[in-house]
């Protein structure tokens, strides 16, 4: 537990919240706020994925499918039925969770890591193709536009507006989502639930023999994970107001998010956040060298696996307190 969450996870989250709080009032230029908003959305995505990848130890490679499902579900319902995005985002999360549980069933039957990886990858490809092919509904690769932004909220005389071009409001929304999701997950995962996940990851057979109902717990983890990812997808859809199947469910989304998690630290609660921040920042730094961005992502993944398999969350400054732990997790194969 200590290794996963660090010593004072609530304090860490509080510090993050305090760092984020003043941003909308700093009069930063829109571009910076836009990049920070994307970072927050991707951080939630990465954290959600890390629940199965890092905590449960199921090496799934198809979570961009849940992002796409959440995004498209919320966008389609709000567009066609005129339902407020404040409601449809939860619907998006719910539908993603249901999809997660459904794809969880075949995965339950297999223990081998490659099977899990390939099945989830194939699932993501199916989802991408379905959204691309249902052109009458989604307009396919032409892009689904006409997604409404979140309805404005009035506080006193000022209305907070959302969606692209309303940088401060969008950032505030993403920040609330970010802090909220992480807080709820901390509450959930610091308890029995998280312990069970880790037990399944570190010693599946032992956990089972102690009476852990593996199937139910795994499906539950899948559902939570997919719901979080789907929620981030919904917020992304109503922020950017355009979706294409390739941009949300294509291989580049997989690579980017995988890089964030690996660089940040697989199986560390806060790892993906650092990874998302670092990679969002560097990819913007390298905008002028567009050709080198994916090269860098690839190289970063390789370098981190070799040199720092626990990611930046696992790096420890040389000065400071003693190394706190360390039982290395044993991979259940």
């Amino acid at each position, binding site marked *: 537990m200590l290794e996963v969450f660090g010593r004072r996870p609530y304090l860490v989250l509080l510090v993050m919240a305090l760092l984020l709080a003043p941003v909308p009032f700093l009069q930063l230029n829109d571009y910076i706020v836009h990049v920070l908003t994307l970072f927050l959305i991707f951080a939630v995505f990465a954290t959600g994925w890390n629940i199965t990848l890092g905590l449960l130890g199921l090496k799934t490679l198809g979570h961009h499918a849940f992002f796409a499902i959440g995004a498209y579900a919320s966008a389609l319902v709000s567009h066609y039925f005129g339902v407020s995005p404040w409601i449809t985002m939860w619907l998006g999360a719910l539908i993603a969770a249901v999809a997660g549980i459904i794809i969880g069933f075949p995965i339950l039957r297999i223990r081998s890591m490659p099977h899990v990886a390939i099945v989830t990858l194939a699932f993501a490809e199916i989802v991408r193709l379905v959204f691309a092919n249902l052109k009458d509904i989604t307009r396919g690769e032409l892009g689904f536009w006409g997604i409404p932004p979140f309805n404005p909220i009035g506080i006193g005389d000022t209305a907070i507006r959302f969606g692209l071009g309303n940088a401060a409001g969008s950032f505030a929304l993403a920040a609330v989502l970010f802090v909220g999701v992480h807080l709820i997950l901390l509450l959930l995962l610091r308890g029995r639930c998280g312990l069970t996940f880790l037990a399944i990851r570190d010693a599946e057979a032992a956990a089972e023999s102690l009476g852990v109902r593996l199937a139910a717990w795994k499906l539950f983890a899948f559902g939570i994970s997919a719901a979080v990812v789907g929620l981030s997808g919904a917020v992304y859809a109503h922020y950017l107001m355009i979706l294409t199947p390739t941009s949300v469910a294509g291989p580049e989304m997989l690579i980017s998010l995988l890089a964030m998690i690996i660089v940040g630290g697989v199986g560390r609660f806060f790892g993906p956040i650092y990874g998302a921040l670092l990679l969002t920042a*560097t990819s913007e730094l390298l905008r002028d060298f567009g050709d080198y961005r994916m090269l860098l992502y690839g190289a970063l993944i390789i370098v981190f696996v070799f040199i720092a398999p626990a990611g930046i969350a696992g790096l420890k400054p040389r000065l400071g307190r003693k190394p706190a732990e360390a039982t290395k997790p044993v991979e259940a194969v």
Partner: protein
Amino acid sequence: MSRLSFPALLSAGLLGAALLGSPAYAQEEISIGAVGPLTGPAANTGKDHRQGLDLAVKDWNEGRGDYVSKNPPKIKFAMEDTSGKPEVAISAAQRLITREGIKMLIGDTLHSHSTLALMELAPQYNLPILSAEPVSSAIADKVLSDEERYKLYWKGNWNSSGYGTAVHDFYKWAFDNKTIDPGSKKIAFVVEDTDYGIANAEKIGELFEGDGWSVTSTETVPPATTDFYPQLSKLREAAPDVVVSVFTVANSGIAFVRQLKEQALETSHLAIYYPTKPEFLEQAADVAEGTYWAALTFSSELNPEHKAFSDRVEAEYGNPGTYSTAHAYCVMQVALRAIDAAGSTDPDAIAEQLKNTDYPCVVGRFKFDKDHAVQSGPDFIPVPVAQIQKGKNQIIWPENVATAKPQ
């Protein structure tokens, strides 16, 4: 130092460096930005656009521009990469707006889906936006759905319906002429799964169905597909009288034409877009004989004006100019002249001048229609249908510009 701060500071420091790295500098020139695909599968076209846009700005700044006023402003130009993705296009445009302080955006230079996203920025940032090569009619439909909202957005290319109309009118002419036999009036499509391919297939299908034709099938394949045997097998069974193929990747087209020939299907074949790429004729000359295609909008061989332009590009950048280079050049000219004529960077004034544009450029006459899209047709930007005859391209329709008779 706690566990949090080390990695967090590292990341935050990098982010800070990324975002604040280059200071905005004093404005004397007017900044114009462009966004388009400079990486990814469409990068070749995007790089052509960059050359065309760049060349127009260079001409303008060095006294060779086609000015409106006596005192034209100096222009600063920057182009950012979209990787062909709408969300990256948005990000890139925002960066140009807030960091470069651009007064006008050329974008997207190629992709319709990116343009559909980018046009939202026009009302939000009060910024005139002119897209270059995107053709999707969905863009024009969106403008018409809320003209006030998109008053600053203009579309520098004709609507995909332009292709549809040209293909339909050409075939109608050829059937009336008895050049081609309409047979049992069945048409089929093999198109790539992009907005471009699908929009064209839909429009052409619609027009043919209006004439009592039936669409036997529309086969959609991923971009850059090169194996069409399963599709051809299906086509042979359906026995269409006309097959229309649309690909933006030349090699898909080369493979398709080759395999069509191998399978010896008895059908009239019309190709859209890919024969504009020089490598098509280089690699498929042996199998492409007799293929009809649209649109021969740029030909160094047939048009001396195009030849002159291509040579200029070659002298400047070391590679010949293409339709994309020429079109981007013209779009930038239109943009620069509008800014010059407006006499200020007031967005509404620039939009007003864009609306009044009536300018003959190397690829044709630029004049916007009510839906904010450049018009196509013999009087505007021509959409000629060509045929490959004896290994060379010949314009066969419309008759007033034809260089050969169809065979």
